[in-house]
């Protein structure tokens, strides 16, 4: 169910990768292509195999089957230390007994003698990288003396120091608090744009994936279910899992007609392919694509709860005859009170 292969500029190609740990399979034939210079997010719930896939690309795990190529070269036959892949670990994995500067210098000092810069050149590169990640003052601090966000930036600078061909980030913002996370996200985006470095990152946070990535590969149960730009994925998810994983979802009863459908006489646009052609069905609808009206036509419902949340109002409405209420949100402060009869008018829907 992946999109047709993008022939142009696929720098990293992962195909049919299988990995088992004992009896349980972490990856069951994962395919993904990453284009030159783009940021790709591997997005999935925990246990979907996304971190395992990243570690296979880095060479920290060997797959049981499948191929991984980078710019046409077989990566799997190259030991990790010669892959020229920069990796930022989930918990940063900074060398705890080395200062920030020593951490960043590590990769440069580990180069074979012929390629190794002089001591002076290394010191200059390290200082430049520290400035770049806005830690110029922190050169002599040890990891234990740095905040989470600062450690993250040292880890990034350390990975960038070896001038990698590919950058891998494992849950890069997972261990940070919300404010630092948003700040770093914008900053990483900018840095990656300047370096034009092909980047793959793993996340379970759909907001993070949609905001930071050029394209997102959604993973589930060891497979890549769908790959596409954030807007493509959001607008036309390939299956109910992707639909529900990438945003809010309400399920509403729909009467299908040729080329569309209606909700209690309210005609709506049907998007995406597949599914039934006619008759009664259950539609997947984005909550923000539902208009809540006081008048028909539309699906009749009753307001169960209305609570203002900042600039919006969160509405719980109960469809006639339905047990569970449906959660929606409307702009502004709504004057709808519990018990008020309303009509739901979805603009777009999808049936799988």
């Amino acid at each position, binding site marked *: 169910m992946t999109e047709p292969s993008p022939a142009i500029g696929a720098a990293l190609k992962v195909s049919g990768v299988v990995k088992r740990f004992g009896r349980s399979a972490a990856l069951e034939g994962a395919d993904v292509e990453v284009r030159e210079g783009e940021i790709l997010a591997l997005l999935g719930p925990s246990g979907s195999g996304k971190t395992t896939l990243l570690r296979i690309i880095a*060479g920290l795990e060997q797959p049981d089957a499948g191929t991984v190529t980078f710019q046409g070269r077989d990566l799997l036959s190259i030991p990790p230390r010669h892959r020229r*892949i920069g990796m930022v670990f989930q918990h940063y994995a900074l060398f705890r007994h080395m200062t920030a500067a020593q951490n960043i210098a590590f990769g440069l000092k*580990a180069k074979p003698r012929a390629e190794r810069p002089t001591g002076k050149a290394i010191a200059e590169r390290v200082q430049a990288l520290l400035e770049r990640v806005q830690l110029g003052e922190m050169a002599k601090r040890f990891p234990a003396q740095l905040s989470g966000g600062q450690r993250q930036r040292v880890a990034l600078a350390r990975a960038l120091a070896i001038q990698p061909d590919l950058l891998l980030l494992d849950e890069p913002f997972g261990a940070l608090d919300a404010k630092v996370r948003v700040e770093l996200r914008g900053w990483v985006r900018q840095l990656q744009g300047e370096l034009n470095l092909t980047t793959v990152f793993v996340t379970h946070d759909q907001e993070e994936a949609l905001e930071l990535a050029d394209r997102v590969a959604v993973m589930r149960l060891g497979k890549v279910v769908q790959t596409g730009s954030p807007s493509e994925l959001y607008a036309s998810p390939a299956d109910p899992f992707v639909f529900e994983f990438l945003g809010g979802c309400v399920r509403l009863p729909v009467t299908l007609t040729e080329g569309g459908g209606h909700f209690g006489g309210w005609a709506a646009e049907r998007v995406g392919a597949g599914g039934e052609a006619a008759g009664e069905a259950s539609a997947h609808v984005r909550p923000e694509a539902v208009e809540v009206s006081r008048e028909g036509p539309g699906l009749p419902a009753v307001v169960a709860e209305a609570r203002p949340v900042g600039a919006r109002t969160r509405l719980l409405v109960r469809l006639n005859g339905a047990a569970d209420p449906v959660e929606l949100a409307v702009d502004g402060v709504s004057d709808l009170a519990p018990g008020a009869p309303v009509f739901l008018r979805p603009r777009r829907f999808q049936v799988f």
Partner: protein
Amino acid sequence: MSTPSRAMRNPAASFALIGLALAWLGLMVGLPLAIVFVEAFKKGFEIAREKVLEPDALAAVRLTLLVAAICVPLNALFGLAAAWAVTKFDFRGKNLLVTLIDLPFSVSPVISGLVWVLLFGASGWFGPWLRDHDLKIVFALPGLVLATLFVSLPFVARELIPLMQAQGRDEEHAAATLGAGPLRTFVLVTLPNVRWALLYGILLSTARAMGEFGAVSVVSGHIRGATNTLPLHIEVLYNDYDMVGAFACAALLASLALVTLAAKAALEHLHPDGLARGAGR
């Protein structure tokens, strides 16, 4: 932090408990240790000094230090290698290796001495062959070293394995992605991360190597001035009713142990994070 137990909130109960623990320790550890020193110096410091400086006693001290000097580096090396293999790699037979490392803890020291006699003694498996080639293992230095190696083997590995397990493999993996080879990674990343725990394990191993009695007793042959280590020499003196001599040497041995203990305590105080107990933060 966990919530204080009822005893900690009740001062009388906590004093009673602490007092009981201290009294028990004083009776079982403090008193015997004090008696050793009191008996040693009962007839004056000079006499005790002479007893310790007797040729046989000096030979025993030298032998004890020599055996420790051979065994401890070997065990440090083995412990480091074993801990590295067990914690940084996955392989078949890993659990077996961990169990084998613990074996010397559970086997009686007498057995660990007897094994070497059965192998290398005059009527042991390799006895005739050794006799033909004029080699001596049992009742000689090699036997003492083998017996001591066996009993002091687990200390370094046991100290390192929990720490290295807690530290995980991420730093080694990071070093690999940064282009470092295995040797570079080991010397620059793994070893510095465990240096204090390694030293701690070496101290424990040293204390055991110097103080071992049972295993060494079986393979020594008790030749005065030749194959008697300090603990064996003390036993010989005691059996000869040379109380002052026995206790003077015991005081010396206890002092060696106390120095080791002090070094261990200092290490725990200075580098709590570098030891297994402090690694869980």
